[in-house]
């Protein structure tokens, strides 16, 4: 069959023309449809735009369990104290605090504090907040963390005392909870606080039209004076590539810990962006199963530790944005002690493996001394780190099979002890009592703690148990020594292979000045930031 049209240049052009016109009509159609349904005016570019990777689970500190929820809540409803980069408590709404006795802590509030609604913040509000938090009807998921708190006593309008059932220094980590107006602290105030949160923080809630957007404005009554930024716009952008593109386009001014190291070189090249980093508190490690098999032998664990060379991994996989770790606590932490780091030492590893009964059957290369499995999630970075470790172990004669599992399955296996080795990360290490959670024999996951204990490798050591229990009872100043001993002993036991502490990384536009990233990835430094002079309206 012949084509129905006569040949000729003109006819060909007409086809092209038809295609062109139709596409334009199509695009106009698109615009029409979208114009009818989704037309809102573009927001004026006052203030700064902060990118989030997921919406906050709640702006109410009593319910926020995600990092985003807690960081945003800290802007609206700060607590009596907060934690600095060394994880030491620093007063916020409190002016000062002291230990009256091992079981009584006293806080003095700053003078003239007010909530966003103009009412005064007094010791009564503090008491109401902590009473509400522990009220079963409020159903705060944090209630169990206050088990050691007996009662809160109002001494006078600016003084409040926390009475403990027994000496328990780690409670201080829980006294950063956001202070609410007394009438919102009880079960009947939960809805109001959820819809329109009120606190005494540097920024006041303005609007949250949907899950993806949140606007805060400066609060003139903030004890340190109104923040200089005219407005904070938080925007949820789930796709990492899109977050990068928004930053490149100049439509976003701040992104804290929501970009992977691999994309940062592109952003560093932009003149209108700065990449700021500072040593962080997230701890990445290889968990080992001490229940049975070769890893029950401390010599094998130490040998593995000597086979891992963390520095090249940090340099190439993390683009230098991490610090090799000697233990769980980061270097800047108040309780950190210098430990004889587990150095890369293949000869020492070989000696230890020989002693433990795993001789090399046929010299370097060839058959392995022993075979282990390593489970990771399917996350690209975690998997590629797993493969590097496999290579490093194999040089020391330890064959490792890397298995990547979907996160739900992976995590379930880790909790139930179905692993030999795994890689995971503690998102933030602040309170050293976390060592007790991670290594005390009472915290081996089991039915009694709903498989929720963090001691997933099942380390059971009576000396360590005693040290960690005592450290939790001692007054704050004396804890450091005990935690030092505990860290040294842990380093000897090697229940995990410490890898690194990831840096806290903020990408900041040149419009935003004076933003100092915190080790914990907090947003509170926004209270002291300002707009660059040329971009101010």
């Amino acid at each position, binding site marked *: 069959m012949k084509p*129905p049209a006569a040949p000729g240049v003109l006819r060909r052009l007409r086809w092209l023309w038809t295609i062109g016109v139709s596409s334009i009509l199509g695009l106009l159609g698109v615009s029409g449809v979208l114009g009818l*349904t989704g037309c809102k*005016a573009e927001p004026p570019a006052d203030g700064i735009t902060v990118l989030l990777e997921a919406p906050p689970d709640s702006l109410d500190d009593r319910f926020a369990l995600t990092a985003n929820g807690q960081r945003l809540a800290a802007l609206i409803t700060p607590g009596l104290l907060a934690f600095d980069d060394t994880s030491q408590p620093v007063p916020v709404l409190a002016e000062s605090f002291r230990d009256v006795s091992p079981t009584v802590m006293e806080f003095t509030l700053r003078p003239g504090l007010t909530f966003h609604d103009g009412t005064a913040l007094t010791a009564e509000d503090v008491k109401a907040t902590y009473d509400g938090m522990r009220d079963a009807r409020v159903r705060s998921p944090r209630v169990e963390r206050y088990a050691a708190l007996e009662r809160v006593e109002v001494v006078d309008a600016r003084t409040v005392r926390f009475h403990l059932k027994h000496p328990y220094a780690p409670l201080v980590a829980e006294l950063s909870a956001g202070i609410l107006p007394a009438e919102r602290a009880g079960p009947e105030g939960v809805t109001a606080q959820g819809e329109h949160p009120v606190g005494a923080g540097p920024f006041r809630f303005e609007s949250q039209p949907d899950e993806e957007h949140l606007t805060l404005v400066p609060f003139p009554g903030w004890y340190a004076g109104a923040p200089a930024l005219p407005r904070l716009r938080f925007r949820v952008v789930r*796709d990492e*590539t899109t977050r990068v593109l928004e930053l490149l*386009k100049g439509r976003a001014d701040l992104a804290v810990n929501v970009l992977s190291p691999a994309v940062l070189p592109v952003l560093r090249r932009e003149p209108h962006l700065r990449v700021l980093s500072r040593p962080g508190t997230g701890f990445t490690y290889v968990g080992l199963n001490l229940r049975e098999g070769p890893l029950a032998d401390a010599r094998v664990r130490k040998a593995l530790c000597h086979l891992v060379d963390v520095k090249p991994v940090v340099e190439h996989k993390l683009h230098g944005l991490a610090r090799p770790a000697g233990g769980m606590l980061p270097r800047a932490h108040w309780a950190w002690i210098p430990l004889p780091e587990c150095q890369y030492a293949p000869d020492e590893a070989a000696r230890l493996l020989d002693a433990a009964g795993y001789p090399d059957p046929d010299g370097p290369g060839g058959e392995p001394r022993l075979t282990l499995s390593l489970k990771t999630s399917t996350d690209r970075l975690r998997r590629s780190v797993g493969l590097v470790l496999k290579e490093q172990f194999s040089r020391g004669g330890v064959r490792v099979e890397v298995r990547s599992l979907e996160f739900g399955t992976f995590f379930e296996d880790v909790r139930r002890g179905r692993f030999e080795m795994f890689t995971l990360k503690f998102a933030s290490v602040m309170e050293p009592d976390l060592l007790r959670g991670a290594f005390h024999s009472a915290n081996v996951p089991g039915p009694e703690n*709903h498989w929720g204990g963090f001691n997933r490798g099942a380390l059971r050591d009576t000396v360590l148990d005693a040290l960690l229990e005592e450290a939790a009872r001692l007054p704050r100043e004396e804890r450091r020594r005990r935690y030092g001993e505990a860290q040294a002993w842990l380093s000897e036991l090697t229940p995990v292979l410490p890898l690194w502490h990831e840096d806290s990384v903020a990408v900041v536009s040149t419009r935003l000045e004076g933003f100092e990233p915190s080790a914990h990835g907090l947003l509170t430094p926004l209270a002291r930031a300002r707009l660059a002079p040329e971009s101010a309206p």
Partner: protein
Amino acid sequence: MKRRLASSAVALVGALLLVSLFLRLVPGDPVDVMLGEQATEVDRAALRRAVGLDLPWYEELGVFTRQLVTGELRTSLPPFQRKVLPAIGAALPYTLALTVASMLVALALALPLGVAAAARRGTVVDAAAMSASVAGVALPRFWLGPMLIIVFSLKLDWLPVSGAESWRHGVLPSLTLGLALAAFLARMTRASMLESLREDYVTVARAKGLSPRAVLWKHAFRNALLPLLTVLGLEFGTLLGGAIVTEKVFSWPGMGTLLLTAIEKRDYNTVRATVLVFTFCYVVVNTLTDAAYALADPRVRRRS
């Protein structure tokens, strides 16, 4: 038509059964999975009640259906149990707009391209159109989306990167979603046109002395549309699925974003309701496709 409606109803009920019960079919305690490690006994009991896991499955299904129909359905997780329907009501127009717009993009590109390729089979036009369409089918959306952003937003500075503040925000997502479909449709159009051009009635029309253009569009194209309609109806489902990826890339506040958020939050009721709405859209569109058949083809009209 009655048969058609009945089978749609069966599909909907099936979907309702599946999405309501899949939680019971998977091994393990779903409440553990949903609440994670730090949950208290109070929370677990509350969640069990909220998603109806304390009831036998048939009662739970009844409760869920009744709540959904009366609009009383609330999100699963304590303490804030918001109503689900307003969230869906806010998100659905965005997804529909995106789907319709990308459908238009696809049609506007695919029909002329496919017809041109068929009419000029074996020429440069044909080869070019079909190579373009192979490329279009092969490109994944999570790649195409950022590429379009880089070209049209960063380099040319014509359009915004992401969000949904104005119609201009919708252009790139519609293109992303529409281009892949256009590529596929163009191939279908070409194949369908070739078949139609071989038919006797085309020869008759041409013998009658009609202009080549009239033969092409009035006789061949009209008949070639029928198989295309079926494909279009089926592809609507692909578009809805693709919308989830595209909405994520462009931060488009539609049903895909709602579903992703709900899955992250393990908000079981919203997940169920969202999946049901997706199913409902799909069934409705396919029923409409059948109705459109009658419009396009007088023979079908006469039979029913």
